[in-house]
């Protein structure tokens, strides 16, 4: 196992939870699956479709997202947006994220 492979595997672990946070942050505006994937990709949050699409439905089932079919355009699409509960969870996760970043940067500074 090369160091590069190890970094890749560990980085995947690190990113796993951040996709939820990124989705909750982005879906303040209603968005459909593929467009969300593209937005996340350009923002630097790499995620596969077969991970993101089931995740959206799971978050909806948990009540953090709401969905609506938009049939105005040529192709009907399912749009997701954050529910009030989702906004609450996002605020909590954001606090957690900030304190993690602060803690890690403090630790790395202390140890050289």
């Amino acid at each position, binding site marked *: 196992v090369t160091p590069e492979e190890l970094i890749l595997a560990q980085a995947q672990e690190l990113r796993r939870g951040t996709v939820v946070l990124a989705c909750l942050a982005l879906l303040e505006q209603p968005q459909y699956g593929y467009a969300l994937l593209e937005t996340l990709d350009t923002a630097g949050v790499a995620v596969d479709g077969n991970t993101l699409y089931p995740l959206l*439905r799971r978050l909806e089932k948990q009540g953090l997202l709401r969905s609506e079919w938009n049939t105005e355009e040529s192709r*009907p699409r*399912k749009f997701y947006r954050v529910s009030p509960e989702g906004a609450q969870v996002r605020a909590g996760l954001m606090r957690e994220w900030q304190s993690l970043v602060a803690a890690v940067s403090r630790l790395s500074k202390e140890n050289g």
Partner: protein
Amino acid sequence: MSARSLTNRYVHEVVRRVPADQRHDLADELRTTIADTIEARGADDRDATEREVLTEMGDPTQLAARYADRPLALIGPELYSRYVRLLAILLTTVLPVVTVAFVVLDVLDNKDLGAAIVTAVTVVFTLGPQLIAWPTVIFAIVERSRHRRGVVAHDSTWTADDLPDDLPEPDRHGAAACVWALFDALLVGLAVRQHIAKPYRLELADGSSRQMQVLNSDLWSGWIWPVLVGLCGARGAQPDPVRREQVERHPRHLVRRGPGGVRAAAGLDPLPPHLLRAGRPGGRERTGLEDPGRVLHRRGVDRARRRREAGGQALPRGTRSPPADR
């Protein structure tokens, strides 16, 4: 889009594996998502792009499992250790006991050795798979229902009181245990043989002779077989007296050599208090067998004391653990 298009077949493969009430909605969403993706690739060759996109989406069974939020393991890591422990117990206790019981019944029916072996093999190969299959089915059902209820956290918290009361027994005493077991088997075997072979010849006054058992044949009532089996079982279940004596009389010796003791001596693990107790006044002779009731009683006392220690209460002199450097 034809009904037999790649996308439709893919979507069908996914949605038929999710709960029925989600199928329609999920199929619509998947189809538009796939179409969006194909379109965004700017396809010259639409079929090739469709193939490429579906390949990237991956195995429909796995995608369906993600949508259905189903575990992809029969028994997850939370239950796995308990599952393995149960299987080990069943296969090392229940299976041998039942097999021996059936063989004994065969012997009681005066069947020959061949028939008894056939019975033993049959029991092992019919009961064994059952003992594996049923716990597996039950654990898989429990795993599914836990997942459905969303139980992801530990539902039972482990405390230090759950530790086994004894240190693992050092391997070098395994030989002694084997010798004891062989000795017991020999005694039981001799008792059975003198009954069957009648090795003793009695000369009668009229010059004729008669084969006799060594032991009083009245002892050989119909209950003798259950009694023998019970004796074997009791012997097997009893802690080895030699080993237990050494644990109590020479704690330091074990601390150095025993597998748990190495870690304890290195300060990694706490030592169980009963290992650290000083030798009893006067010491006890090696009496061979020890009353199992006393062993159980002492274990109960040990456990009660450890609980008191955990409660932070002061202990009577002499029972407090010595410093860690012992």
